[in-house]
Structures are given as C-alpha cells and as structure tokens.
C-alpha cells in the first residue's frame, strides 16, 4: 500500500488511508476549488513506523500502567508527554525516510509548509474533534518536515485524544494517523466560516482576522464576526473586534505582531469579500452534502480553502468528570505571560495582605456570636480565594508544560522530564521554609546539652537565638502542627520535629548550580536570533510557573490556616462547656454551637478506613517514577496532621496528596509514595529537589499500605514493593 500521495491522486477508496482532512482537501482539489498544493502521508506509513520500531509495544506498556478511569488530568498529560518523547527519539527506518523524502522535496522544493494531522476518526460527521491533534505551521526543509510528521503521529496519543478515546475508538492495535503537508499560503487576511450557525440554523457565521488564522484558532487574536443569512449570504450583523495584532510566519513557527494603525481601523473583510467566503462555503456544502466548518485565507485577493469539515454539535462531557475542564486550560505563551503578571503583581500580594489582616485580628476578644460570624466570614473568604486559585493559578501550571514540550522538541532528551532540572531550584517558599527549619535544627545539632534538654521534654526555656528563630518562623509560616483540621500539639510538636531533623543531619539538595548552568547553556545554544529570545523567555516563564505552582499552595494555606485558627478558638470555647467531644466537629457545627448554647452535636461516626481484608495484602503496586533512586524503609501513612508530626527520619512517606504545607518533613523521608499522580505535582517537585526516590499515582495507596509495613520504593521503575511475610 502507498505511504504517500499527492492530494490530487487520492481516490474515494483511499479514505481510511488518508484520514478525514486529507480526503476533504482531495475532494475539493478534484472539483476545482482553490486549495494549496500538498501531499498526504498515509496511515500505512504510521503503521510501518510503529510496528518496525517496537513502538507499539512501548505504547501498550505506557497505557497499561494504570486504569484510565483512575488517571488524573496531569497523568494524562504525563502519559502523552512520555509517548511524544518516545516518538521523538525513535528514528524512522531508512526505507521509510526514502519513501517520504523524495516526494516531499520534489513537491515543495524548499518552500515552507504546514504539517497537520488527518486522523481517520476526526472530522467525521458524527463527531468533530478539532484541535485534539497537533499542527505545525511554517516548516522548512525535508528533515524538519519528517520530524514534524513524527510529532503529528505522536499527537494521536495527546492528552485530549485520550479523554475522548471511546468516542474516537482509540485503540493501540488499530489506531493510526495520516498527515497532510501543504504549501503555506501567507494570506494577508484569514478566518473561518460556519456554513450553518450552530446556535441558529437560519444563519451562517464568518470570523476573520488580519494575518494567518493561527491567532484566531488558538484564541490569541480576537476576530471580527459577521452573521449572514444562510440562504442568501446577506449580512445581518457585524461585530468589530479590537484589532491589535496579527499572526505572521517567523522562523519555524508563528509570532504575533502589532497591526499597522490603518489596518486596525478597517475590518479585515469588505462586504464583497464576505460574499466570496460565503460562496465558497456554499460550493463546499453542495460538494459534501452538508454545511461545512471551513478555514480559509486571502492572499492578493485570491481565496484559498485550507480545510473543510462537517459542522457537528458540541460533544457532551460527563458532568462529574473534571478532567475535560483541566485539559481545556492550555494557554498560549502570550496568555501565560499576562497571567503571570496578574498573579505575581496582584493576586499573591493580595493573598498575603488578606492572611495578615486575618492573623492580626484578636479572636479572643470576640463574643461567641461574633466568633461564629467570623468563622463564617473566613470560610467565605477562603472559598473566594479557592475560586481564584482554580481560575488563575491552575492554568498557570501550563507554563511548565509549554516549556517541557518545547525543550523536548529541541533537545530530544532520553528522559522526558530532563527539562525539570532547568525549572527547579528556583526560590520556592517551601524550600525557603525548610531552610529556616534546618537552621534551627542545626542549632540543636551543635549543642548536645540543648538536645538532651529538649529530648527530656523540657521545652519551657529555650536559648534566646532558638526562641527568636522559632517565633520568626511561626510568624512567617504559622505553626506547622496546624493542618487542615486543627492544631494538634502546638509548639512542642515543632520542637519534636526539630529534634528529629537534628538527629538526621542536614538534608542535601541534589541540585548543582554547575549542572544547571551547563544544561541551560546547551539548551539556549540550539537557537539564535529571535528564536533564542523566545527560548529564553519561555524558560523564564516555565521557571515562574514551577515556582508559583508551589508558592500558591503556601499562600492559600496561610488563609486556610486563619480559618482553622478561628474554628479552633470556637472549639476551645465549646470544650470549656464540657461534656461535648470536640475533636471531630465540623466548622458548621461549631458555628451552631456558638450561637446556640443548648445545641449538642451528634457524635460523629468515624469513617470506615477502607480496611484491607485480612486475607488480602498488596505485594507490589504500580505508579509512575517521579524521582529516580531506590529506598527501603518502614512506611508512615499520613492521614492526618498528627501522623505528620510523628514522622521519623528514615521512614517512607505514604500519603494521598503531599501538599506544600506538609513538605517540611520531606527531607527526613527515605522515600515518598503518593496516590495523586503526575510529574509536576508538589510531591514530585520536592522529591526531585532533595533527590528522594519517589513514586506517584498509586491508586488507593493509603489503604493498601499500612504504617509499619516494610516497603521498597523503586523510583526508577515507578513501583512500590511490600516485603514478603511468608
């Protein structure tokens, strides 16, 4: 079977070989429509590549590690990143290179091209999944085109494609991807047309921008919009955009450039031109027998059709599945830069002020009713910040992703997470906090008498330096024994922690400045000119994203800590009334009890801890390798703040989700195991920072492993082995 076709060679029987996009383009070419010349690399080439290289087996192994239902959105991204890297690092066979390079170099003759996916399942009338797979614009030279073909192939396994794998019929053994390569037409104006408005069947809709339509498609350039009468093409209404920028080809990609003032005052299309676009959509509709969603561009007044697919209704996501929302948060570089400014310059300082305001309030002076009111107010403040966190801080994490993909494309590292070495070691608040703790621990370590005094429990009088440091620490970071539920042991718990750290010896950060500088230099040396500036800026953005990802937890943790402080004050007052067990009281019950002295809350039933059945025991659990290394030790399963404060040096930290408010014990841990998965989550970041073997994404780990179990953490392979009791 053929591995590559010219668009005009494609026949009706080739549909599954060439995929939906190429098939539609070929149909338009055959019918005399103006389509840029191009080629299609068939699914046969994909199949040849994945079977001859053993890649299919590797994809199977990656997919088999975890049930899809158990995967978090970050794990889907990780999975697709790993698969992408396998494609990047697997060379095509000489036979395949030969088969593809001849037609590519003779057709385009050094001209710049666009490389796009044409999956057999996409663009079918049943479901349109626009934007699941990758496109590359403005690519020059056969080698660069071959490289992008592999990346488009890899995007068959993109995170979003995985999300819709059932609808797409994604199957490792059967799925394949064709690729369209077309000459780039650098139009002065571009856009899309919906032959039928999805919201009103009597209308058609045109959107248009200056420059290439990448700006429109990825949402960075706001388009002008025309609503037309679907029958006649008459303009019903026109919405002007604030025209400021245009996407233009630049090196091997696209950049945004400012518009000239005369352009920004003119709509990108005249009324006659909207008529031209409408006519083309009508022609395509009669050709395909259904209204079309088309991309087009205008160059020197000639209209080119770039793609055409049937209009479909939006797909219904499962309401309780949050993953589509997270995966839709992809942000462009420009967008992330703006977001970063907002977070750094406005949101974080506001959060800090908020926490400080709350901390300065003397709760003891409030009456019971006022305290109840205050708990409610603080809860609302916290909820409001949680909303901001979700809206702004979570999308910011995509800065790391953007950098990671860029780095891997440029460097082809064997470790798909090598890029993290360039992101880490920024000044994270949690690391700064750990350094302050270590400073105090070393005071104890160097003073045997003091250590003995503290070990015997005499914490009343501390040496002045330590006392001051402890106060300063609590001022800045709060009492670490205050968790999500309550403060457990106060200052004594902090001292016990410092004692444990003192015994353990100073933690060593794995990071070496020299290695970082060398890697950074090597990375930047791959670029020159504008591209180098972009790489530098993207690295800076990635580093900010990495740091903020962590810091934001600490900032929101401070506000949460202030809710806890008020709830704790309420609990103390209710406790003084006697006879009511207060330990597990919820905030709402405390508010009620404060307002109503006769209210007696029901004793909560302790939750069933999902006890493992006596005759069933986990032996080996599979997760993801998050920091290489091997560690063996006794497990400490962290379910509450008091578990955290009992943590002993050399134990393995086993938890549901390690968040920055817990990481002060991380330097003491031999290994880290976490239910929550992902390479860019806090647990993985902190483990890499200290070089602690770490496995993340182990389902139900806190019930399958129990405190005291002897476990081995294999951070190379991402497995956790429980020692056998024969």
């Amino acid at each position, binding site marked *: 079977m053929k591995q590559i076709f010219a668009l005009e060679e494609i026949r009706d029987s080739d549909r599954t070989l060439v995929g939906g996009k190429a098939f539609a383009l070929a149909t338009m070419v055959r019918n005399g429509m103006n389509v840029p010349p191009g080629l299609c690399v068939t699914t046969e080439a994909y199949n040849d590549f994945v079977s001859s*290289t*053993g890649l299919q*087996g*590797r994809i*199977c*192994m990656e997919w088999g590690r975890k049930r899809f239902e158990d995967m978090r959105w970050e794990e889907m991204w990780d999975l697709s990143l790993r698969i992408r890297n396998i494609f990047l690092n697997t060379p095509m066979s000489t036979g395949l290179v030969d088969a593809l390079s001849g037609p590519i170099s003779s057709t385009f003759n050094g001209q710049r091209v666009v490389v796009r996916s044409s999956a057999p399942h996409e663009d079918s009338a049943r479901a349109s999944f626009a934007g699941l797979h990758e496109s590359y614009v403005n690519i020059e030279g056969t080698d660069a085109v071959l490289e992008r073909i592999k990346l488009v192939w890899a995007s068959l396994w993109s995170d979003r494609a995985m999300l819709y794998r059932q609808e797409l019929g994604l199957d490792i053994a059967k799925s394949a991807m064709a690729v369209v390569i077309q000459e780039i037409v650098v139009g002065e104006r571009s856009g899309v047309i919906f032959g039928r408005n999805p919201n009103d069947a009597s209308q058609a809709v045109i959107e248009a921008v200056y420059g290439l339509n990448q700006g429109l498609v990825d949402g960075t350039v706001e388009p002008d919009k025309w609503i037309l009468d679907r029958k006649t093409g008459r303009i019903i209404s026109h919405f002007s955009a604030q025209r400021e920028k245009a996407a233009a080809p630049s090196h091997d990609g696209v950049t945004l450039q400012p518009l000239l003032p005369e352009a920004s005052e003119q709509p990108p299309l005249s009324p006659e031109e909207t008529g031209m676009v409408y006519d083309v959509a009508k022609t395509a509709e009669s050709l395909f027998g259904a209204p079309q969603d088309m991309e087009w561009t205008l160059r020197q007044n000639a209209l080119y059709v770039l793609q055409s697919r049937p209009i479909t209704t939006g797909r219904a996501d499962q309401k309780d599945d949050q993953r589509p929302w997270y995966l839709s948060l992809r942000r462009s570089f420009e967008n992330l830069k703006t977001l970063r400014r907002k977070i750094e310059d406005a949101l974080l300082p506001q959060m800090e002020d908020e926490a400080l305001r709350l901390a300065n309030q003397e709760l003891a002076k409030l009456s019971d009713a006022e305290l109840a009111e205050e708990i409610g107010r603080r809860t609302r403040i916290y909820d409001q910040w949680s909303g901001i966190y979700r809206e702004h801080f979570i999308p910011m994490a995509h800065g790391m992703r953007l950098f990671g993909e860029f780095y891997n494309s440029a460097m082809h590292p064997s470790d798909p997470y090598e890029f993290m070495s360039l992101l880490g070691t920024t000044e994270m608040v949690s690391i700064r906090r750990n350094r302050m703790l270590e400073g105090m621990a070393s005071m104890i370590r160097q003073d045997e008498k003091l250590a003995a005094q503290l070990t015997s429990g005499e914490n009343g009088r501390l040496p002045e330096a330590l006392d001051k440091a402890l106060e300063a620490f609590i001022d800045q970071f709060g009492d670490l024994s205050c968790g999500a539920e309550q403060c457990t042991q106060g200052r004594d718990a902090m001292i016990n922690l410092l004692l444990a750290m003192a015994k353990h010896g100073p933690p060593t950060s794995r990071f070496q400045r020299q290695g970082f500088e060398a890697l950074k230099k090597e990375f930047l040396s791959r670029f020159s000119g504008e591209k180098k500036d972009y790489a530098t800026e993207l690295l800076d953005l990635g580093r900010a994203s990495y740091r903020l990802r962590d810091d934001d937890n600490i900032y929101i943790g401070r506000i949460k800590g202030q809710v806890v402080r008020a709830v704790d004050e309420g609990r103390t007052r209710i406790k003084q009334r006697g006879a009511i067990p207060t330990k597990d009281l919820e905030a709402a019950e405390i508010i009620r009890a404060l307002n109503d002295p006769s209210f007696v809350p029901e004793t909560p039933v302790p939750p069933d801890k999902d006890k493992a059945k006596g005759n069933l025991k986990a*032996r*080996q659990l599979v997760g993801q390798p998050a920091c*290489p290394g*091997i560690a*063996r030790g006794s497990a400490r399963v962290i379910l509450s703040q008091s578990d955290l404060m009992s943590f002993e040096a050399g134990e393995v930290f086993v938890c549901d989700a390690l968040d920055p408010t817990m990481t002060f014990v991380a330097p003491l841990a031999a290994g880290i195991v976490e239910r929550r998965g992902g390479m860019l989550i806090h647990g993985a970041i902190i483990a890499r920072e200290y070089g602690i073997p770490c496995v993340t994404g182990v389902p139900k780990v806190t019930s399958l492993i129990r405190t005291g179990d002897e476990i*081995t953490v*294999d951070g*190379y*392979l991402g*497995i956790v*082995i429980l020692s*056998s009791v*024969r």
Partner: protein
Amino acid sequence: MEWNHKESTLENTDGLESLLRDLFGSQRLAVLATQREGQPFANLVAFAATDDLKHLAFATTRATRKYANLSADSQVAMLVDNRRNQVSDFENAAAVTAIGKAEEAGGEYRVRLLEVYLSKHPHLKGFATSPTSALIKVNVEKYDVVRRFQHVVELRVKP
C-alpha cells in the same frame, strides 16, 4: 505457533534444537520456578534464549520474591509451551522444561545477553536497564521436551 516440524526430525538433536529455537522465538513468556526453604514459587517472566540454546535470559527487579529466592538457591526450572487452551492441545501442544542454574549476568556477557533480550522485547528496555533490575542468565543443563501429551525426550546441553 503451529507445531509443524516433521515427527521424524524430532528424534535427532538438530531437529530438536531447531524446534526449540522456533518455540523460543514464538513464545514471549515463560513460567519460572524457584524455591526457598522448600517452598516452591512460580511466576511468569518475559524471556529470551541465546541462539546456541545454552542460556535463557529474563529480567527482574531486585526487590522481588523471585530474586530473593534465586539469591538463596540458584537452581531453577523454566517452562515454555505453545498451548492454546483447546482440546487439540493434547495432540498438538508442546512443552519444554529447562533445568539449570541462574545467576545475574555481568560484565561483557551481560551486554551481549541484553542485546539478545532486547531484540526480542524492545519495549522492555526501560525495565531491563533500570539500575534496580537484574538481567538473569540461566545456564541450562538440560531440556525436557514433552509432545503428544506424554511423549518426553531429554536434550542435554553441553557446557
């Protein structure tokens, strides 16, 4: 894999060896038997055989029970077969039991053995080359070849 070797060729060493090569080439997994303190233990491993049939290879992480057993007692058995879980197995299936001693492959031989192993299981590269994994070489002393349910021949491997 079809058992299409002519019966007559299986009564001589060359014929039997070529049959073993075909079987080992077609089957990806073998059953490994180990023991410790009298307690046998069996599990599946992805295996490969050297062309001279003197060695079988598999990879394991060092924290596993099989590795602990092997460290305590190097005597092992491995079973490779081509059954299809059908009645016709009683007529057509073959099973080969390899008896020998296992050791962790080291030095130059490890490099060669790893090449053999990965050419059969390229997708196990990450697993087999992890610092926590060991590549195990089984020095085969003999093969017991069972056909037609109860017909058994033994092939001794020259050291």
